[in-house]
């Protein structure tokens, strides 16, 4: 199946493409909203500042909303997960997609920020995206802001505070970590997503 990877100039897409390909998909990079409309599934990647999502214009937003409405599988990775929420205090004037309620906040606690490295995820409930992933599996994070571990949270991680590591609403999924950099467990998550497409 054809998976559109949305390019909005927020970081390097090489690893995401490599991971999706290893998971059995045929991903392609696009900035064109029509490609997102036509694709079998959509991945919203991204690293860095929430302000980078400003580059996702109204047309692309509408295409993403339409894909979600039509039940196309969507996966947000890292900043892509945060974009699924109402917004982020990192760029308060920019709205997210609002698929999930709540705003992303700066990680709080007596810890080094950014949160960089391998940390564990704890399941809150079963989800097809986590099928076959061991409890307490380590995955690779690199971020400073995080989404609330509330509605839609299927697995949480605690770093100073609990936050959403994996979210699900209908056919929309998000992972705060980088599955394409998380060894065998990360590849399994990508394969699970591809299997839903």
């Amino acid at each position, binding site marked *: 199946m054809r998976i559109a990877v949305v390019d909005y100039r*927020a*970081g*390097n897409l*090489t*690893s995401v493409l*490599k*991971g999706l390909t*290893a998971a059995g998909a045929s991903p392609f990079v696009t900035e064109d909203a029509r490609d997102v409309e036509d694709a079998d599934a959509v991945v919203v990647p991204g*690293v*860095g*500042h929430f302000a980078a999502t400003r580059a996702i214009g109204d047309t692309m937003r509408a295409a993403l909303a339409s894909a979600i409405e039509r039940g196309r599988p969507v996966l947000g990775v890292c900043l892509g997960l945060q974009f699924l929420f109402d917004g982020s205090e990192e760029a308060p004037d920019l709205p997210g997609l609002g698929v999930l309620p709540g705003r992303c906040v700066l990680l709080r606690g007596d*810890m*080094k*920020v*950014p*949160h*960089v*490295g*391998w*940390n*564990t995820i704890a399941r809150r409930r079963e989800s097809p995206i986590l099928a076959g992933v061991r409890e307490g599996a*380590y995955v*690779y994070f*690199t*971020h400073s802001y995080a989404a609330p571990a509330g509605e839609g949270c299927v697995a949480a991680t605690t*770093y100073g505070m609990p936050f959403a590591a994996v979210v699900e609403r209908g056919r929309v999924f998000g992972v705060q970590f980088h599955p*394409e*950099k*998380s*060894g*065998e467990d*990360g*590849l399994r998550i990508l394969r699970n997503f591809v299997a839903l497409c």
Partner: protein
Amino acid sequence: MLAKRIIACLDVRDGAVVKGVQFQDLANAGDPAALARRYNTEGIDELVILDVTATIENRRALADTIRRVSAELFIPLAVGGGIRSEADAAAALDGGADKVALNSAALADPALVTRLARRYGSQAVVVAIDARRDASPGSGTGERFAVFSRSGSTATGRDAVDWAREAAVAGAGEILLTSIDRDGTRAGFDCDMTAAVSSAVAIPVIASGGAGTFDHFYDVFTAGRADAALAASIFHFQERGVATLKAFLQERGVPVRQG
């Protein structure tokens, strides 16, 4: 709980892995892609490729090495050595690296760190610092950590703690701190220097130089306050397995990722 990272370093020259003692006497240690493949299955948490004698002539060899190594790797890959410009960084990142490590170029132009962090995010920018105990006469207590550039050959007059702070402000996402005194000696990491830098910055610090025994890793993760520890020869020559090292650390209460 956030795991302490065990990072393997491949010092690469002209496409082959080499490892020296105190930056000299490079001895051949093998094919980088073959080593990367082994590390990926053995449970290493991250891989660093350092092009130790980067010259214009071998740039193509480096790009080829990055592609070959990253093709089989689903853990973070950092590349350093000879990254002097945004174009060099772009070539490494487009080739499959997740992070670039800047050393001499960052010292010469700290704004390069900022430009790269804006373009790729801080998580993609590592500032590598090579430093040694400053034992020169008139340097006072000898507790200052003198920063060297150009593969340890040129004194910069900078102190490692000050430079790490400045690099973090400029936008570095991590500090890779190498003790020139300990490099290749297997006498243990410089825990004092690592702790001094790690306490001074809010970004992760990777300790490098001197790994020889499992106890050295324990020491640098506890007394040295390191977030990650890097070693080359201890892994290359298959003296000790990564899994055995992790089991050793886990037993002693250091959180590590179990593969």
